[in-house]
Structures are given as structure tokens and as C-alpha cells.
């Protein structure tokens, strides 16, 4: 009898464990939809606070951003604190997500119904996919009038779809060549390249002086793809670019020319030694690290570059000799030579987010917090009133070119979506490795688009 009851006890315990496990799952999936929690522990915590203090106004929101650097995390902690102080009852739980993991984590969360209430938004094809899945809030009519006025016309372009706005842009990221003026001086380059002829000449001059001309983080592929985007921006007419998302055939001759430009440049071997196994942003051996440590003269990047380089210099300070020039013009190109490639970091509310979410977006878009954002990320604020905070000479040059550009074009991988972006990355890297020629690279891309 004793042993029987002992067995019985064990069995009951087992059943209880199974039940607890099942209930745990159920609790997870039902609780997550409303509060947007990401972990079971977090979920239960919120539940207890909600039951013990049934304040009618209390709202908890989750917030995902990619500011892994110390300045950015501090900025968001302080900003959220200020917002919570101004809005009693609102709590925002911050989760910092490594940039490269963000898209995947968002996808998983959206699939699981645990979409964070506030999250980083880059716009384009990815935003369109989120929108089609009913995951993003339309904030067009919820943005404060004075914020709209401060931002100015066109500032919401990258975060809009069919005339509706789905994210609050915080930064603009014009692309160009960031270079170390000290190394240019050392090589004796006095005027910045404006076309490919003078660019190639500068590369030759730098190499003759024993300086690695261009840093390229081709292991991450996207930095290499940006060379293709920039050449395409110069080669292709505005019409072709404008119709890119509706017509993905890439049959205009300008695409082949852009690949050929990449191949021609590659033939001059302007890159750092071992560029195929160089990553973009991690450590002194990365492409940004090479520029930060005076090991390479320039790099093609968006305007996050001064911040990234600043984190990789020996003293952790921004590189004082960093300057900027626009991507060179190409002979016979159909694109406007002042046109600029770029993107924007914005913040979206999930479709199910409480109204306080839009309050938060309006809050961070104010001049004071836009300035703080630009400073924390070493980037250009989307709020034009906050532009005064930008003192870095390279960023100032980029901002000026951006404001005078005939038109601005969103990164192709963002506007075309992940699958084409992946195909372009692959095609360009294969081209740089010398395994296909320009026509072969174009075929790789077209095949991927046709299959998608």
C-alpha cells in the first residue's frame, strides 16, 4: 500500500507537471497578444503588478531598438524615463536588439503574436510586408501638427506607403564616401573626386603612397552591394528607379552597366587586403575599423558611419579627420549626379499598440529629443529643427548634399524587400570574387527575382 500510494503520488506529480507545462504554454500564448511580452518571466511580472495595483490608467508597452552602443542605450533609458514622468501610469519596457538580429526577431514576434508595441522601422518592402500582415499602425492623422511642421515636407517619404505614414522617422542616412583627410593629405590628394576618372586616379595615388584606398566589408555582403546600388543610382534614370518596386525585371541596360562599373572598379583592386573576409563593423579589423585606425582611406556607407567609426578608434572618440564626399558621377549616366541614396531609421507602433504609443512617437520627435537622438547615434536628425546639433564636418557635408539632392532614393534592399536584397548581395559578392562577370551577376539577380 505504501509503495502504491508512493507511486500514485509520483503519478499525480507527473500529471501536475504536464498540466503546469501545458497551462504555461497556454498562458504564454494568450497573455502575449495584449501586452506584447517576450518572455514568460516578464509576462508573469506584468500580470502580478496589474492585479495588485488595478489602476485604470496603467499601460505597459514594450519597445525594441538597435542602439547597442552605450550612448544610444543611455539616450533611450533617459528618454523613456522622461516620457514616463510626463505620462503617469505608462511604463515602457526597453529591449535592445543587436541590429543584425532585429529583422528576424521581429518576424518571429509578429508570427507569434508578440509584436513589440514600439519598434525600429526602416520602411520600404519590409514595411509593406508588415503592413500587408496587419502589423503596423497608420499614424498619419495622429502625428502632432507642430511635429509635422518641424519635420517639413517630404521628411516622411521613406516611412510612407500610398500616402499614409507608418513610422516616425528619427534620422536620415544619406550615403557617400567617408574618408580620412589626413591620409588624403599624406598621399597628396588636394581635391575630392567628382567622377569615376578622378576617383580611380585618387585610388591609384593612395595605393602608390602605400595606403589601402577603399575599405570594404564584403563578408557581410551588404557593404559590397551598396557599391552596386550607388552605381545604379548614377547609371539609371529617375524613371527606372521610381518604377523599381512595381517592375522588378531589371531589364533596363543601366543595371548591366552598374554591374560592369562594379567589375571595372574591382579590376583596379582598390579594396583593403582580404576584403572578402572583412566584416563591416565589428572590431579593429573590420572595414570601419580600418578607417578608424588609419589603415584605409575611405569607405562607402550611410551616415551612421561617423558613429560606428567613433566606436572603433583607439580612444573611442570620433575620428577628427573624417570627411565626406558624394558618390562620383559616371560617364553617360542617366541618373542625376546630385541624387543621393539613403534610408531612415523610424519607429513604428504595432497595430495593437495602446494610444500611448503614438504619444511616445510624438514625444521623441520633439526638437530636444531629436537632438539627443542625433547626438547619441552620431547621425543626422529627421527633424530639421534639430539639425543645429550636428557639428561633425563629415555629417554636415552629407546633410548639405542631402538637402540639395535632386531626389533621394531608399536603399534597394529595403525598398525591394529581403529576397531581392539577398540576391543582390549574393550577386555582387560573387562578382567581386571573380566567379561571374557583370552579365552573370545580373543573371543571378534576375533568376532570384523570377523565382521569388
Amino acid at each position, binding site marked *: 500500500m505504501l509503495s502504491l500510494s508512493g507511486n500514485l503520488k*509520483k503519478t499525480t506529480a*507527473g*500529471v501536475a*507537471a*504536464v498540466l503546469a*507545462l*501545458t497551462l504555461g*504554454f497556454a498562458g504564454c500564448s494568450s497573455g502575449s497578444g495584449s501586452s506584447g511580452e517576450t518572455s514568460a518571466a516578464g509576462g508573469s511580472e506584468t500580470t502580478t503588478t496589474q492585479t495588485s495595483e488595478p489602476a485604470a490608467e496603467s499601460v505597459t508597452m514594450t519597445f525594441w531598438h538597435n542602439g547597442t552602443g552605450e550612448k544610444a542605450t543611455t539616450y533611450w533609458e533617459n528618454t523613456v524615463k522622461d516620457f514616463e514622468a510626463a505620462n503617469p501610469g505608462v511604463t515602457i519596457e526597453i529591449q535592445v536588439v543587436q541590429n543584425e538580429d532585429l*529583422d*528576424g526577431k521581429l*518576424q*518571429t514576434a*509578429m*508570427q507569434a503574436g508578440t509584436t513589440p508595441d514600439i519598434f525600429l522601422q526602416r520602411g520600404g518592402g519590409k514595411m509593406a*510586408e*508588415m503592413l*500587408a*500582415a*496587419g*502589423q503596423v499602425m497608420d499614424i498619419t492623422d495622429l502625428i502632432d501638427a507642430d511635429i509635422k511642421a518641424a519635420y517639413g515636407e517630404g521628411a516622411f517619404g521613406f516611412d510612407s506607403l500610398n500616402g499614409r505614414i507608418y513610422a516616425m522617422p528619427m534620422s536620415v542616412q544619406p550615403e557617400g564616401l567617408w574618408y580620412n583627410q589626413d591620409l588624403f593629405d599624406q598621399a597628396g590628394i588636394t581635391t575630392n573626386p567628382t567622377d569615376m576618372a578622378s576617383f580611380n586616379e585618387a585610388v591609384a595615388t593612395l595605393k602608390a603612397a602605400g595606403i589601402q584606398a577603399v575599405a570594404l566589408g*564584403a*563578408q*557581410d*555582403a551588404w557593404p559590397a552591394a551598396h557599391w552596386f546600388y550607388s552605381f545604379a543610382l548614377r547609371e539609371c534614370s529617375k524613371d527606372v528607379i521610381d518604377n523599381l518596386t512595381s517592375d522588378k525585371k531589371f531589364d533596363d541596360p543601366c543595371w548591366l552597366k552598374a554591374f560592369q562599373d562594379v567589375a571595372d572598379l574591382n579590376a583596379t583592386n582598390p579594396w583593403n*587586403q*582580404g576584403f*572578402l*573576409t*572583412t*566584416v563591416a563593423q565589428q572590431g579593429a*579589423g573590420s572595414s570601419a575599423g580600418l578607417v578608424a585606425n588609419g589603415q584605409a582611406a575611405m569607405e562607402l556607407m550611410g551616415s551612421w558611419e561617423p558613429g560606428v567609426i567613433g566606436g572603433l578608434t583607439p580612444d573611442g572618440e570620433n575620428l577628427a579627420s573624417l570627411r565626406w564626399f558624394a558618390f562620383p558621377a559616371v560617364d553617360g549616366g542617366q541618373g542625376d549626379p546630385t541624387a543621393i541614396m539613403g534610408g531612415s531609421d523610424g519607429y513604428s507602433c504595432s497595430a495593437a499598440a495602446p494610444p500611448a504609443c503614438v504619444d511616445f512617437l510624438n514625444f521623441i520627435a520633439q526638437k530636444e529629443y531629436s537632438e539627443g537622438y542625433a547626438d547619441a547615434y552620431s547621425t543626422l536628425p529627421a527633424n530639421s529643427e534639430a539639425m543645429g546639433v550636428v557639428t561633425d564636418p563629415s555629417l554636415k557635408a552629407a546633410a548639405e548634399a542631402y538637402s540639395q539632392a535632386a531626389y533621394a532614393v531608399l536603399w534597394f534592399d529595403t525598398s525591394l*524587400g*529581403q*529576397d531581392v*536584397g*539577398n*540576391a543582390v*548581395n*549574393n550577386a555582387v*559578392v*560573387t562578382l567581386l*570574387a571573380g*566567379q561571374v562577370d557583370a552579365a552573370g551577376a545580373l543573371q543571378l539577380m534576375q533568376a*532570384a527575382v523570377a*523565382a*521569388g
Partner: protein
Amino acid sequence: MAGPAILVFVTFVIFPVFVALYYSFYSWKGYGPATNFIGLGNYKWTLTSHDFWGAVGHNFIIAALSLLFQGPIAVLLALLLNQRIRGRSLIRVLIFVPYVISEAIVGIGWRLMLQDTGAVNALLHKIGLDQTVSWISNPKVALWTLMFVISWKYVGFAVILMLAGLQGIPEELSEAAAVDGASYWQIQRHIMLPLLTPTIKVWAFLSIIGSMQLFDLVYIIWGQYIGSIAGTSTMAYFMAQNGRLSGQLGRGSAIAIVVFVISLIVALAYQRFILNRNVDGALTERGMA
């Protein structure tokens, strides 16, 4: 008490397999429910992809070379370490350490050392070899680089397994042989090795399965794209690149199912033709004879 175990297994292993099967029939990008049914389209894409068969080939080459390199090295080291030699436990620990270190750390460490400007090339320059070898990106070298890292990482596991097998062999056998005048090598060749066969077969099975699943080291050392250029992409790497990275999760699911079937066939074939014959050549019959 099997209940919870079965529940966990069904929830986290069986159920996802069927979910992947379901998604593999859709063109699905991961946001919201899958609605665009395309039948066998994803399978057709996978099976007609040149790169996919390249990756499958790499898996099989890696499996074969792993057996070829690691097997003899592991057996020799195990025979050596089975002797009472000075510093035996220290050598055992040193051989086993790479296996214990996480793949991520091993991957990043070797990636940094093997870069064109990395420590390995710097060392070669120091000893007067003035040629820079692209260990990672040169397609002629890359697969051998991978094989070296894999062998370095996993040979310790094989050695420990073989040692355990050797220590399960009764000492009386070798003592009796020695009394009969057998030399050291004769004992190893004709007594230890045959009796070690079951262990070797189990190790080979684990090694083949590991080679079929290989992903992390390649992904970390070669990054998301260079692997397919350098010729080190594996089936799982191909799946990550064309499923996850391209946001084509339906296609990724189809690749996963194909990889699952290939691995299953390999595993079943091995069990049917090799593992089952354990008793044939080993103890029982000789004992009877």
C-alpha cells in the same frame, strides 16, 4: 513517467516538422498567416538549384574526409593514451578541450586567425614564407581549412569515445596474447582493433550525422555569403541563406524537409548496412568458434 518527455518531444520536435511541411507548400515571408499556396514550387526550386546540390556535395565530402582524417588519428591517439605514459591525463584534457569550447567561440577565434591579415599568415611571414594565403575565401583552399578546423574541434570527442571502448576490453586478452609471444603492434592490430569495431562504428555514425548537420562553424567563419563562393556551404547553410536571409520562409521550410529526408536516408542506410552487423565480425562468433 514518460509523459512529460513525450509531450516535450512532440511539442518541440514532431510538431515543428509537420509545421515546416505545411509551410513548404506556400510562398510565405513570415509576416502573418501563409495564404499563397504554390504546391511543389519550393521543392522544384530547391531540387533544380545548382547551389543546393553543391552544398549537398560538400556535406558528403566533409563526412567522408572526417572519417578519413579523424578516424585514424583518434584510434592512434586512443591507443597511445591507453598506455600508462607520463602526463597522460594532461594530454587527455588538452585533446578534449577544443570539443568543450562552444562552436561560436571556436568559429570567431579561427575566423580572426585565418583572415588574410590574420595571425596565421603573420606567422607564416615571420618564418619566411612570404605568400599570403586566403585561407577562408580561396575556393581551392577553403574546404581544407574547414576540414582542419572541424578535425581540430571534434577529434577530442572521437578520442574519448575510443578510449572508453578500449578500456571496456578485458586486459586478460592482451595479456594472454603477450604470453603467447604477440608483439605490441600485433596485439593492437589483431585484438584491440577488432574489439574496438563497435565503438568505431558508433563514432562514425555520430560523425556522419554531425557532418550532415554542419552549420555553425561554416556560418560563423565564412559569414552569410562567402561560404557559397568559397565552396564550404552546407545544406543547413544553404537553408539559412535561401530561407531566413532572403525572407522566403516557405522555401526555407521546403529545403529543411529535403535536408531532413536526405539525412534520414543516410542514417537509415547506415543503420541497416553497417551498425546491424556489429555482432557479425566481433565478439559472439569468434567466441563461439
